[in-house]
């Protein structure tokens, strides 16, 4: 299940909905991304007062659905959720939730990491941070590209 929305979400309620009535699930791995109050600008950390998330309506939903389907092909999941917010957010606000349920702990963890890594490099979102120096567009990090690249190899089986 994927959702692209401006509103906040409730992690506990999302996990409860994901596992509701599915008693074959052994575990749920999640990752929740939050807005940080500091960000590197020209090499030094600067305070961030707010962040605006821009996205490409239509393509975003399409890419998220593709990424989710790929995770379900690679791992034996009993359910998955990707929720990504857009619009104006403040430090501490939730940005993204990825949750993967599986009978197998390692599958749930791996699928969750895979989804986060691909979200970072493939989902059409752009972050504009409000700093003392004005609005600064967040730049791609080389570590994110490297994290996504590792999944191009055959995933490890449990």
């Amino acid at each position, binding site marked *: 299940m994927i959702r692209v929305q401006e509103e906040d979400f409730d992690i506990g309620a999302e996990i409860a909905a994901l596992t509701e009535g599915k008693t074959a699930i052994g575990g749920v791995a999640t990752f929740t*991304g939050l807005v940080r109050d500091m960000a590197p600008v020209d090499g030094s950390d600067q305070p961030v007062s707010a962040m605006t*998330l*821009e996205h490409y309506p239509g393509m975003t939903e*399409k890419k998220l659905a593709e990424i989710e389907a790929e995770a379900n092909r690679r791992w034996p999941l009993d359910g998955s959720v990707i929720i990504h917010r857009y619009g104006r957010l403040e430090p501490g606000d939730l940005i993204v939730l990825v949750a993967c349920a599986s009978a197998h702990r390692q599958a749930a963890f791996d699928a969750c990491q895979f989804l*986060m890594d691909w979200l*970072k490099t493939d989902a*059409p979102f*752009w972050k504009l941070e409000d700093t003392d120096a004005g609005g600064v567009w967040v730049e791609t990090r080389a570590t994110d590209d490297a994290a996504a690249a590792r999944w191009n190899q055959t995933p490890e089986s449990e």
Partner: protein
Amino acid sequence: MKILYFAWMRQRIGLSTEAVELPADVTTVDDLIDWLIGRGDGYAAAFEKRDVIRSAVNQDYVPFDHPIKDTDEIAFFPPVTGG
């Protein structure tokens, strides 16, 4: 053709979307970029770092040698930073 711009490309061009009539000799994404750059300083600034820009045709990532046609939706944007 519908063209969309995002993030700092949108800011530099001053438009989030526009509809254009493609000249007959514009048949790839690369051609389109060259043609857009010729339309003004904002476009030139937006496409300055041509190596880092990503393009999508009909909401799928494509390389710059991808063919385009007048009914396509094409988007240009900086590297994505979601998640």
